[in-house]
């Protein structure tokens, strides 16, 4: 038999919830809410909105503060380092986002499917562990992992034909390496989140599906995945925002390899170079704005496609 998602149940469920929301006390705007949100709002203003506005101001002015039109943008886009950096970040994002979505969802489903409680708990803990290391220190750890002479997995590296650190960090390998590092540090947290989202799916629905004869794979594909869509989109937006800002990994790898990995590998590094190497804050601001616009556009795609702001 074909299995249709029990949509009638869904609507009943959702409308039922809506009714209860209406019948209850309307959520009043209590002052305490403002207190909760005030600190975030202040910080967002001080470290998000004001700097963004300042960056916009910088991007359209020159060093003396005069109006520069699009000159700064022309300068950075025609810089010989700009397009390679765009390519690097794009490749990294494609590899990383695809890997993240596929593996996180897969692992979360597997962990969720475990019958034994202890196994699921300990696995989630193990997944989360690498993420507990702060960004920079986890990269430092990877410096050792990637060096065939010091790596605990040196056998594997040599099997792949890498006998020295410099061979490992050849330009062609870098997007994949950064994606692996980012996945390793970031995936665990997302697996825990997805696990929570899976727990949110009503057991009634899964029960009904099983009674209708769906096996685990069918349940995953036809019920759990569609109901995770929002969370996957959320993960996509967040990871995209983080990924376009690739900075720590190449910067540390650049210092560790004494410059074999260039210090202008990613767009964010290039912005840093402009600001602090060439003393051109206006150019740096222009690169930041380009990044911001691209990230906003891509986020918009994720939000609309993933139905992130749809009300249930």
């Amino acid at each position, binding site marked *: 038999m074909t299995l249709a998602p029990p949509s009638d149940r869904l609507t009943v469920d959702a409308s039922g919830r809506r009714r209860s929301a209406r019948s209850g006390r309307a959520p009043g705007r209590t002052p305490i809410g403002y207190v909760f949100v005030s600190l975030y709002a202040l910080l967002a203003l001080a470290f998000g909105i004001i700097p963004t506005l300042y960056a916009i101001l910088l991007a359209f002015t020159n060093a003396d503060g005069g109006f520069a039109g699009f000159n700064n943008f022309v300068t950075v886009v025609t810089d010989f380092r700009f397009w390679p950096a765009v390519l690097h970040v794009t490749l990294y994002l494609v590899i990383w986002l695809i890997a993240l979505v596929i593996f996180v969802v897969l692992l979360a489903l597997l962990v969720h499917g475990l019958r034994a409680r202890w196994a699921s708990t300990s696995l989630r803990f193990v997944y989360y562990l690498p993420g507990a290391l702060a*960004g920079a220190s986890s990269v430092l750890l990877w410096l050792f992992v990637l060096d065939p002479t010091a790596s605990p997995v040196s056998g594997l590296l040599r099997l792949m034909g890498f006998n020295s*650190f410099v061979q490992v960090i050849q330009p062609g390998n870098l997007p994949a390496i950064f994606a692996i590092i980012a996945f390793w540090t970031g995936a665990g947290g997302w697996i825990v989140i997805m696990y*929570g989202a899976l727990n949110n799916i009503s057991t009634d629905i899964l029960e009904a599906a099983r009674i209708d004869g769906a096996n685990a794979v069918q349940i995953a594909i036809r019920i759990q995945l569609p109901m995770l869509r929002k969370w996957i989109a959320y993960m996509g937006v967040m990871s995209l925002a983080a990924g376009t800002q690739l900075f720590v990994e190449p910067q540390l790898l650049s210092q560790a390899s*004494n410059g074999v990995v260039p210090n202008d590998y990613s767009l964010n590094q290039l912005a840093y170079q402009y600001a602090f190497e060439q003393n051109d804050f206006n150019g740096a601001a222009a690169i930041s704005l380009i990044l911001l616009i691209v990230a906003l556009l891509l986020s918009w795609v994720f939000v609309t496609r993933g139905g992130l702001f749809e009300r249930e």
Partner: protein
Amino acid sequence: MVGIPTVVRARRRSALTAAAFGAAAALLILTGCSNGGSTTNGSYGFPEAKQDPASTITVWVDADRQAAAKAFEKANPDTKIKVVTYDGSANGSNSFKTKMQLFDRAGSGWPDVVFSSQNNDAAWASQKSGGKQAFAAVLDKGLVPKDTLSNFTEGALNPCTVSGEVYCLRNDLAQAVLWYNKSLMDKFGYALPTTWEEYQALGEKVAKEHPGYIIGSAGDAWTPEVFMWASKCQANDVTGVKSVTVKTDSTECKRAGSLLDTLRKDGTVPVVSVFTPEFVKNYSGKVLMMPGPAWYAGAIFNNPQSLNVPAGQLGVAAPLPWKGEDSAVTGNVGGGTWFISSHSKNLKAAEQFAQFVTTADDYQVAVAPGYPAYAPAAEKWIAKQESSNYFATPLKPIVTAASQVWDGWGYPIFSQEAVWAKTMTPAITGGQSIVDLLPTWQQAIENQAKVNGYKVN
């Protein structure tokens, strides 16, 4: 719900944050937090801040130079100094320049004396930046006595000299020499090469007769400074404050490239950085010869963490000439510099400090690990090293090499090491030949020069 995963938080290190710092600096300016010190036209050739001879001076040093500050405090208990440790701009971090530019934007906060481990700081520190007075005080217009300046080894102040004026004092020299293992050479019955051509021939011989032994290494970012510079390759000829001549298609560049290609193929000059565990593991006890800077002695050979060559084996020979050239020239890899801030409120103490750390025996001879740039101290330093009985030969060649650094290779703002590391090292590791890569190298240097505002001839 679980919070946003760490990866997001950790990497919110966006350029916007940089902009935020910039914003903070701008706000400081707007709110009038500038130092307000009136400047007068000083007697040393630059506008001075109002002087206060009793004020404490702030000195920035790297970890290795903390000993210099300590030696100064011991010798001059009356001069108050505040020591700040930073990375010395090492590994291309450029923190010196970065921090000074932020102080420029804020209009205050500059340290009085700064040590840098790089040679490309005078190029920017001597110039006005964003309408602000140049950071570096000019030293040869009365601030530092003429006698002191003239006692530095010939050519030692080249990295400090911009348009004929001196902007920093050199701490140590890093002239390249030919290090060799005398015991091994004797054992194999090899004579020291006297030209680069003989060096190459010997390398080919070693590959056949004693595979596994090496006569140099070319895996570091300073490979061009050891081999290309010593071959008079005109890849970095700074001809003016903002102009550079780059010509990598010359015979001089090709011969050095071809030497390296030949010796890499037969395994006697591997593309492995001397500071990797791999190098120590594979080549301990196997280094027959090694062209490289003076500081290799302490950093690589006589270092338990590195090659750990036993006493009585290490010898040193003068830089090699190419066949048909009457005198040898050599390259240089780093060697620190000391800058005095033109914004200092106590120039007298700052000058006293800079002069002490570069010339006084208490530091340069008694403590310093590198070859002193100040000639009188260098002589005593060499004598001290020889009396340690570590070396198998006299150290005279190091002194000879000190004034043989070729002056056709300049000190621009951008780092030639960074260009080589990112453009050449991966390609060479991937098996391409240096001779074939010369045009790529040329293009990379030109690109880097242009974005830094240089006119390329």
